[in-house]
């Protein structure tokens, strides 16, 4: 059994009376790709926000490679090797594409001891990898949505993370872009990065994830392989819908 990279014990996040994340336990092993699915408002993004301490946790513990990181300052968690992208992309608009990625290279897990020049080189390498190699001098606010998503990914990858959380990376992409993104994600995983992927695009989940976790009203509803989860009656009722289940059974989903 490979090393446990991320483990959460009864993690909860309450906003006033509302439990956005409700006692979620999970483990993630090195090299895995875990999909997190569920209806909108299920708490998927909040879960990631709480793990990375963008939002303060209400209760529970978070462990990274065995060490407890609950409530660690966000930037320290990032430096440990945890990177995440945002559902609504957050580029540094008045910096160039290259500079955006350079920030990640300077301060991420690989950033210690790196000079500015070395960071720039690393950033360029990452940008080539995601396919933005020919747009490095453009100001970030001039990219298309697909480009911005790649940039978001590049920033995270430049940090050289061990754990990468992707938040609805496929949203807003057309068919061709989605396939390209899936290829990219598979390659990232092949290079040794553990992935936690929040998605609504089932094709991507099935195509990339080894395990899937379903959240509903903040609670973990089901967990298992994509096939197990997608055929789970509770998941179908809560999220996928009967029509999807039927199409799946007929081999078309």
């Amino acid at each position, binding site marked *: 059994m490979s090393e446990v990279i991320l483990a959460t014990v009864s993690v909860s996040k309450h906003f006033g009376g509302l439990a956005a994340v409700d006692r979620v336990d999970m483990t993630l092993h090195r090299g895995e790709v875990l999909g997190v699915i569920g209806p909108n408002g299920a708490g998927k993004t909040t879960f990631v926000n709480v793990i990375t301490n963008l939002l303060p946790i209400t209760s529970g513990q978070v462990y990274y490679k065995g060490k407890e990181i609950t409530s660690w300052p966000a930037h320290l968690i990032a430096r440990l090797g945890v990177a995440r992208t945002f559902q609504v992309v957050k580029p540094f608009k008045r*910096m160039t594409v290259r500079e955006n990625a350079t920030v990640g290279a300077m301060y991420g897990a690989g950033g210690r001891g790196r000079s*500015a020049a070395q960071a720039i080189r690393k950033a360029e390498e990452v940008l080539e990898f995601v396919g933005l190699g020919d747009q490095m001098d453009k100001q970030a606010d001039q990219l298309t949505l697909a480009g911005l998503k790649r940039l978001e990914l590049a920033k995270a990858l430049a940090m050289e993370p061990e754990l990468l959380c992707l938040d609805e990376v496929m949203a807003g992409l057309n068919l061709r872009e989605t396939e390209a993104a899936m290829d990219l994600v598979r390659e990232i995983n092949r290079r040794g990065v553990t992935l936690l992927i929040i998605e609504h695009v089932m094709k991507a989940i099935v195509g990339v994830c080894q395990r899937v976790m379903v959240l509903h009203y903040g609670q973990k509803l089901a967990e298992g392989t994509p096939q197990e989860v997608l055929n789970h009656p509770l998941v179908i009722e809560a999220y996928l819908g009967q029509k999807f289940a039927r199409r799946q059974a007929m081999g078309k989903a």
Partner: protein
Amino acid sequence: MSNLKPETPNLQSKKPMPVTRWDRLLGTRRNAVYLGACAVVLVVLLILPHMSLSGFVLTSLTTALLLAVRAQAWNFIGGYTGYAAFGNVAFYGLGAYGTAILMTKLHWPFFLAMLVGGLVATVYAVIVGLPVLRMRGQYFAIATLGVAEATRELVSSPQLSRLTAGPTGINLPFFRPAGLSGAAAAEAGSIFFYYVAMGLVVLVVLATWWLTRSKLGYSLVAIREDEDAAKMLGINTTWAKVAAFALSAFFTGLVGGHYAYWRTFILPEEVFNVRYTLEGILSAVLGGPGTILGPVVGGGIYDAVSTFLTFSKPFGIDLGQFHVTILGVFIVMVIVFLPRGVADFFGRRKLSWGMFLENVRQNRV
């Protein structure tokens, strides 16, 4: 593998070209040209005092230089980090008082006193900055304004008057180079203070230039653009902001120290007057916040306009009373038509009146 090129048409090309690049001298590419111009200006400024100008001109130039330093200092926290601090005069006053106290009570030499005055301001910035930098935007701005007010009160309070002489102010020793006195000393003084001011300008510009090439610089601009994203990338935003604030305070404090010795007399209402902050900010905004030379240029322009309005008599009309009002109008117009500062000019390939209209259209209701 994954080398697919992203989609083609750039649907966002309708937005106006962004013009201020933060690591450029004046926001755009023509660094070599600007560098050359700088060199020329520098040489001119260096030989100026020896061209037997009136004391008035030298004094005006010195004031302009000091304004440039204050504008540049503000640029660290306001322009690069995006935290519009409105209380920098607190650092100015602390630098002035620090220098004054060290020179009068401990008889320290000027440069050392000025340096330590700057350091006092810096330490104060770190202490005050830690709570205050947690706030963002408007709240931060007014909190710093409050800091300035509170600092003024503290310094002029009876409790501290044994150290600071309270509201009556401090008299500093005159600048007396060896052997000279009277008019000759005064003249030597003007030249001395002029060169010190120039030195400060060079120092602060070099510091800014260093910043744009350092990791700290990247982190500050990242914070300005998106603080949460910056945190998620591993930037310790608290320390970065405090560092920017401290840099800002240090240079502003140095200017305060210079002022103290130059004027030989400081009063709390003077060195803690909020107008000093606002002049600094306006100069920075006028010139182009978040660029290396923008604030310096802005400072020069602002001082020129201000001096012109104060002393000139265009068309024979004595502006007298009105010069501050007109300055206010000038400020309002700059804000409305040129919100990104003069650096906006330098970025365009074609200058036209349309640029002003475009600026307004972007910002109007």
